[in-house]
């Protein structure tokens, strides 16, 4: 198979697996025969894989609900039901699934306050609505700091969470098994890091969005189905092999005459298929990074039980998209922007934003200032990454094109 055939196959495999993340997938997971737990937001795969239960994430299912041909209908149904309009649409959809009775009732719920208070609200919603109100819950409290004491604090909670999971599901937490999973997780993290670095090549050898796909398989899909976990490693290895070969031969993305490299520092929009391929093909503009392809993961330190939990906590707090950017001071966001632009040779930064994402709206000016100081052309879009009707992909394309022209990049 040639490079593109391999990449197409990897893409197809990933897209097939992503069905597990939709609300239909969540319902299927509930019937798999494994203990079934729902998390209100992002969760690490190491615990479900080690303890062999299925973990689905509400906000991810919500985000998947804003993609595809039924997206507008889904969002409108949520609005008609009276779900708050100023909520981020991924959370809004998750709340809708709950209130409409589409979300299956799990054996246990893990709620968190991260990355935002809207996710916290989902946990509170599940306190009020029967039958979820009667389901045992564990609340994770993510600190805003990034000191060792914060990681230790969160690590203790993760350990307590495993005890509660054992109590509710009967699944044992075995340290040996957990160590194996952590080692495998570290391997995956290194592979993703390797891919990130390969992206630095000019021209960029592979669509950078593949990093997001690999990450989502290794993390979210593996959490829903522990059997996927080792397959994620192999998927990543195959991705690295083909990308390395392309770098060796100085090959870029097929069909793309790369002229511009930009940073889209927010979530990849659910309507990205209507924007990024067009930007690549018509303008030669390649999106080098977004929140979900920026997997800046610290390794899990397996030297002791305490260190394992602390370092997993650090991985979660500092490496989870949106948690990294939204839960910590804005200077982290600004530092990331400068570093990414330099390392990945980005010519410009786009700050898309989305409804309800108050943190990015709050530091819009900081980001603009930092870009100006570092000579990075900056565009603030103000679109919604979930509901394309708010600012259509066509309008976004036109604005970005004008921006690239005005910045002298086209």
């Amino acid at each position, binding site marked *: 198979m040639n490079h593109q055939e391999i990449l197409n196959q990897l893409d197809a495999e990933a897209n097939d697996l992503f069905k597990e993340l939709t609300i239909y997938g969540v319902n299927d997971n509930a019937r798999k025969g494994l203990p079934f737990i729902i998390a209100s937001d992002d969760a690490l795969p190491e615990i479900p894989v080690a303890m062999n239960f299925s973990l689905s994430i509400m906000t991810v299912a919500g985000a998947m609900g804003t993609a595809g041909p039924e997206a507008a209908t889904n969002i409108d149904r949520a609005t008609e039901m009276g779900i708050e309009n100023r909520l981020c649409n991924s959370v809004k959809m998750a709340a809708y699934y709950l209130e409409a009775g589409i979300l299956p009732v799990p054996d246990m719920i893990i709620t968190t306050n991260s990355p935002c208070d809207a996710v916290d609200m989902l946990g509170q919603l599940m306190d009020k609505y029967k039958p979820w109100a009667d389901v045992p819950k564990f609340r994770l409290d993510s600190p805003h700091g990034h000191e060792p004491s914060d990681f230790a604090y969160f690590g203790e909670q993760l350990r307590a969470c495993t005890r509660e999971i054992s109590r509710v599901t009967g699944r044992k937490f075995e340290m040996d098994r957990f160590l194996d999973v952590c080692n495998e997780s570290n391997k995956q993290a290194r592979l993703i890091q390797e891919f990130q*670095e390969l992206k630095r090549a000019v021209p960029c050898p592979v669509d950078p969005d593949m990093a997001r796909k690999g990450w989502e398989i290794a993390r979210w899909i593996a959490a829903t189905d522990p059997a996927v976990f080792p397959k994620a490693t192999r998927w990543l290895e195959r991705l690295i092999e083909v990308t390395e070969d392309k770098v060796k031969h100085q090959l870029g993305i097929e069909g793309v005459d790369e002229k511009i490299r930009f940073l889209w520092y927010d979530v990849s929009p659910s309507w990205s298929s209507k924007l990024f391929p067009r930007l690549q093909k018509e303008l030669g503009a390649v999106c080098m990074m977004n929140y979900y392809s920026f997997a800046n993961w610290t390794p899990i330190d397996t030297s002791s039980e305490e260190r394992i939990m602390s370092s997993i906590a650090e991985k979660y707090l500092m490496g989870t998209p949106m948690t990294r950017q939204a839960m910590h001071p804005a200077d982290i966001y600004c530092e990331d922007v400068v570093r990414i632009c330099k390392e990945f040779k980005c010519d410009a930064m786009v700050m898309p934003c989305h409804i309800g994402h108050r943190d990015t709206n709050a530091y819009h000016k900081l980001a603009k200032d930092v870009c100006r100081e570092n000579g990075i052309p900056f565009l603030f879009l103000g679109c919604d990454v979930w509901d394309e009707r708010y600012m259509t992909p066509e309008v976004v394309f036109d604005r970005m094109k004008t921006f690239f022209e005005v910045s002298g990049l086209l």
Partner: protein
Amino acid sequence: MDVFDPYIIKCTNKIDEMVADGKKIRVVMAPPSLDEIRGGLPIAVGPAASQGVILRSDTFVELGNPEAGSCSIFLYTSQPSLLCNGRITLLGPDISDSGISNLTFDEVVTSGGLHSSDQDLELLEKASHRAPAAKSFPFAQIIMVAGKNLSENDYEILKTNQIIGDLIEGYMVRSFTQNIWSRVSREAAAKGFTFETLGKALMALLKSANPKIEAIEIAFVTTNKHDIDILEEYARQIQKISKEIVKENWKIKGYDIECASDCASCDDKPVCDTIRDVLKEKMKEARKLKNHKQK
């Protein structure tokens, strides 16, 4: 005295201690002018000097793999007299001392590189189709710069200018914020890339990006993880000071990035913790009383 001066003294004293302990040392002096520095290098330095990527299969040696030990320290001062301008110190083996290895990439990751056991090496002999990879040195990099006119206001620019990207041929710093983890390519090694090369390249880049810099001294430590861990402790303390500088610089711009609601950074946390303990005890007492009444 500038905020980092005590740490400049600490680091130089630590290096002297290591030398006194018998650690292998090599000291070279870089020439004073930028042109002379660049001219003497076996590799290119500057924009687009490299592709920015070194493949696993092209890696001669890794520096600062986290399992092997990694630490990056950057210090500045307004007193050039505190530094020995142009001095590059290497404690421990040089890049050219690494030799060729059969270790595969991920086995370097899990085995800790230079410190593999015989069993590990046996496993590695049965290496699969994966690309041959390189050893990893434990690695600490200490960069100290001085300039009469350097101040906290320059701190962020100095930090940003440490991002190497594609500026050094045959050298890639990996995507890792806390420490420093890098690769030297086989091609660069074949051209004679050593720590002297790296030190001079860094000096050239920093000096040309920052005209206020009058003196630079760089030290590399590749002895063992224990030595790196000691320097890592200095790095943690230095990071606290760095954070305060960053906070102040943002305040000057008009933004208060103080995370005031963060319990961990609040001076009154012990008071709150005490009150929380009292609350817990009182709730326990209340429950006991309630249970007693119900009986």
